[in-house]
């Protein structure tokens, strides 16, 4: 679907009912959508704003637990030996009136497998023995908790629309491909099964449905480059709880577009980053409130293969000069008692530290509090010396540092400017390059930058490490990639063999990828988390300097009964769900009956 082309036929645009008396919830949507989009959920141009509001998942995962889910299309599930048996909610219908059955789940799993999704690396087979039951067989070594996580969060698409893309032998080809991929990814891609999957996906991605047939609380009415209009669907299984007659998403492609909507009271809600000046402005308005929820991690990855960043002492010295607390204040103002500051650069978010490490272990971690004297001592011990106010490396060249960040992440830019000033003042000539998103990963993988910015967001602490230290891993890391566009590049360039506390000398990317895929929550996971946390804390291959805060501005002018806030606007459970999950969190708020139009 295009940006509202004049050539669009009337049949393509859904009919619009008369404007509803009750107001549609108006959402100022950060980062928005592009000039073209597709109503095909298998397309990369699928508008993420529709996720979970039009197409429901089997279940919504609720943080911080890795094993806590709220059932949606699935009513229950249980492990039976090596199988995960998922029972579907009975009596559900799609928006075109057809019944929701296990064939929808099966076809979705098969079709998503053609593009490398639905976590096929976790299971070896999927079957639909009855219309309301689907069975996933775990791959040997994959814990049931990992399989649950991988399977249940997926949204399901109607077989009546996409089933025709499932070829007769796709199930066998899928099994053959993923079995081979578990041993040798490139051989799998070049196999007959790999080519068959690729051919199916090629056709699937070119498909352009004229309308959406979902099963969630809302139905798509219309979409333009400026807005998306959804209207409430009474066939949703929990429709009686949903209070909004509809939702209008506004395309906030830049935060600067959204701020006037807040100040001018033309929106009800925004998920855009709010700098301290905007927060102050909103605080002066009685109708505006801001919920603050912890979110993903901001990491700066060293180019560990480039001199002098291959020296542990140099990386540690830089960690001591990073003014993490000041950076957070510059980004968020005084949002509460250091909510976003990472207490210890150890690769874990603050809540993960609390959940997986004991207080005694946490006490052993180095907080790298701002300490230029320690940084000086470390650099001197590595052979560096000061010339005037600038550090000179042992090879006689000035010590310089380039940091690459994404230009559209305005909160990061704001924060990094503080860090650059601190590094410059310390005597390391630092260059900050705010570059387009299209260049961040290539520059990181090919080693153009000294330090590169990436985000990580996981509930699984081992995945959190694998996201950086792994090769591609289950979720994709940055260290010595062997597949895809960057195969053969060094990326993070840490190791690959290194002495990991508790594990000894191991191949870092291989080991963390394997552990992230096979270790379930429990004592073993806790032990491994402690091992990797010590590695990151001691050797500093990257610095996790800030836990991003999601700031949700909401207005009580037209809508009331928003989920409650804690002290100083700190998030409560439902806001945290929203922060971690995005739309599934919004879905849970609605299923709890929150966000009600004023009478």
């Amino acid at each position, binding site marked *: 679907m295009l940006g509202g082309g004049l050539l669009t036929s009337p049949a393509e*645009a859904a009919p619009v009912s008369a404007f509803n008396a009750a107001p549609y919830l108006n959402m100022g949507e950060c980062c928005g959508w592009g*000039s*073209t989009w597709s109503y095909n959920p298998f397309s990369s141009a699928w508008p993420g704003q529709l996720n979970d509001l039009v197409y429901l998942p089997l279940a919504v995962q609720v943080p911080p637990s890795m094993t806590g889910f709220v059932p949606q299309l699935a009513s229950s599930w249980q492990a039976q030996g090596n199988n995960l048996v998922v029972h579907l909610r009975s009596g559900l219908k799609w928006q075109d009136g057809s019944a929701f059955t296990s064939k929808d789940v099966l076809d979705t799993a098969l079709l998503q497998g053609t593009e490398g999704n639905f976590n096929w690396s976790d299971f070896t087979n999927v079957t639909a023995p009855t219309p309301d039951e689907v069975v996933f067989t775990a791959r040997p070594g994959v814990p049931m908790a990992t399989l649950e996580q991988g399977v249940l969060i997926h949204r399901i698409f109607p077989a009546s629309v996409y089933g025709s893309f499932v070829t007769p032998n796709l199930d066998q080809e899928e099994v053959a491909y993923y079995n081979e991929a578990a041993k040798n990814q490139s051989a799998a891609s070049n196999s007959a099964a790999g080519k068959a999957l690729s051919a199916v996906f090629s056709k699937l991605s070119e498909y352009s449905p004229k309308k959406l047939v979902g099963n969630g609380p809302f139905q798509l009415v219309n979409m333009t480059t400026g807005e998306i209009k959804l209207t409430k669907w009474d066939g949703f299984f929990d429709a009686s709880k949903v209070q909004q007659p509809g939702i209008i998403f506004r395309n906030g492609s830049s935060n600067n577009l959204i701020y006037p909507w807040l100040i001018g009271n033309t929106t009800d809600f925004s998920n855009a980053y709010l700098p301290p000046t905007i927060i102050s402005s909103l605080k002066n308005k009685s109708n505006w409130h801001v919920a603050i929820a912890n979110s993903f991690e901001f990491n700066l990855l060293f180019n560990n293969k480039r001199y002098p960043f291959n020296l542990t002492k140099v990386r540690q010295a830089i960690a001591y000069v990073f003014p993490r607390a000041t950076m957070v204040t510059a980004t968020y103002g005084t949002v509460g008692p250091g909510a976003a500051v990472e207490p210890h650069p150890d690769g874990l978010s603050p809540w993960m530290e609390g959940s997986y490490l004991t207080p005694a272990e946490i006490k052993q971690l180095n907080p790298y509090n701002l300490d230029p004297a320690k940084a000086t001592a470390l650099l001197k011990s590595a052979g560096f010396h000061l010339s005037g106010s600038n550090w000179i490396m042992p090879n006689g060249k000035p010590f310089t540092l380039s940091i690459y960040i994404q230009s559209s992440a305005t909160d990061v830019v704001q924060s990094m400017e503080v860090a650059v000033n601190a590094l410059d003042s310390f005597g390391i000539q630092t260059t900050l390059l705010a570059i387009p*998103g299209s260049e961040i990963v290539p520059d990181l993988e090919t080693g153009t930058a000294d330090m590169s910015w990436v985000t990580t967001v996981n509930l699984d602490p081992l995945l959190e490490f694998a996201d950086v230290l792994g090769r591609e891993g289950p979720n994709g890391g940055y260290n010595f990639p062997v597949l895809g566009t960057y195969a053969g590049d060094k990326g993070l360039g840490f190791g690959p063999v290194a002495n990991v506390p508790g594990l000894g000398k191991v191949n870092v990317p291989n080991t963390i990828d394997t552990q992230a895929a096979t270790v379930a929550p429990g004592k073993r996971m806790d032990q491994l988390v402690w091992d990797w946390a010590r590695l990151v804390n001691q050797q500093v291959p990257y610095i996790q300097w800030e836990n991003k805060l999601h700031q949700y501005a909401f207005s009580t002018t037209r809508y009331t009964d928003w989920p409650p806030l804690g002290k100083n606007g700190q998030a409560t459970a439902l806001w945290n769900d929203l*922060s971690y999950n995005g739309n599934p969190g919004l879905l849970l708020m609605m299923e709890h009956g929150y966000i009600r139009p004023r009478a």
Partner: protein
Amino acid sequence: MSRYIARRVVASLAIIYIVISLSFFIVRLMPGNAVSALESQLSVQGMTTQQIDAQVNAIYAVTPKAPLWRQYFTYIGHVLEGKLGRSIINQSETVLHIIANALPWTIFIVGTSLIISFVIGIAIGSALAALQHTRAAKAVSFVVSVLSSIPNYLVAIVLLYLLADIHPIFPTGAAYSVNVTVGFNIAFIGSVIVHGVLPIAAYVITSFGVWALGMKGSAVSVLGSEYVRAAESRGLSRRRLTQTYVGRNSMLPQVTTLALSVGFMFGGSIFIETYFSYPGIGYQLDQAINSRDYSVMMGCFILITVAVVVSNFLVDLLYPLVDPRIASPGGARSVADRRAEGTKAMPVGGSTA
């Protein structure tokens, strides 16, 4: 004349081929790629790594992986067949369909803006030339100079802030409302007009001055020419003087520029369309560049190149009709010869009556 046309056709085709080839390699030499662009965009939106991977995998599966030279020859072959391929970001759309949908919007806002700014600019420029020594003309010239030097995106931001955000009189973006049904109906047409007001205003405010100043300069120069003074001394009416002698002659360079602007019009206005999320060619191109959607980028470049080359070609064809010396330099010499021999030469676009 036919040799002249043949030369121009060959030159135009050569230019189009060279530009397409250069564009093909230049866009692929740009740092970054579509996968990284999407990954970064989704990570800023706060999606989990798993959610990001689901969308990134979809794009990775369709990203071209053949060697660049092979991609080039395949692409040129397809272009010759009239196929521009599919969008990398949105595989469910062909580039031709994307362009065909975007072009009418661009023609609507940029074309309307061009006509309005041209008419206003010519009228004001003529008046400024006619009243060039008055205080009012100097004041207006100053204002026009200032307006023409303000970047159009700045005016777009101010208009958005004042007339869409603070006083929500006009919509903040898009080409029409989500509350109307696309089709030939009053609600849709009204919505299109209302959504077009601010983009058109931003364009007109910053571009009419260029026409006005160009027209003023041209008219002042014509006013000082000998044939105008000769016509004046022959006692021709002021109306005839301004319309036939000054007006037509000073309009000629403006019309030439207008013809070229029509070519550039097909490229849309990147800044204005982007600020207003207006789904024209400029917005598509901006999004394609940001997301490294090579197919759409190339489609837009081809459109712009062909439009500019064709409009140049048409101007080239029209010129000899106005001035035969251009098509036949030998003929030009004979005109000069005849002039030297005392034959009356006719001023370009003018009259000896």
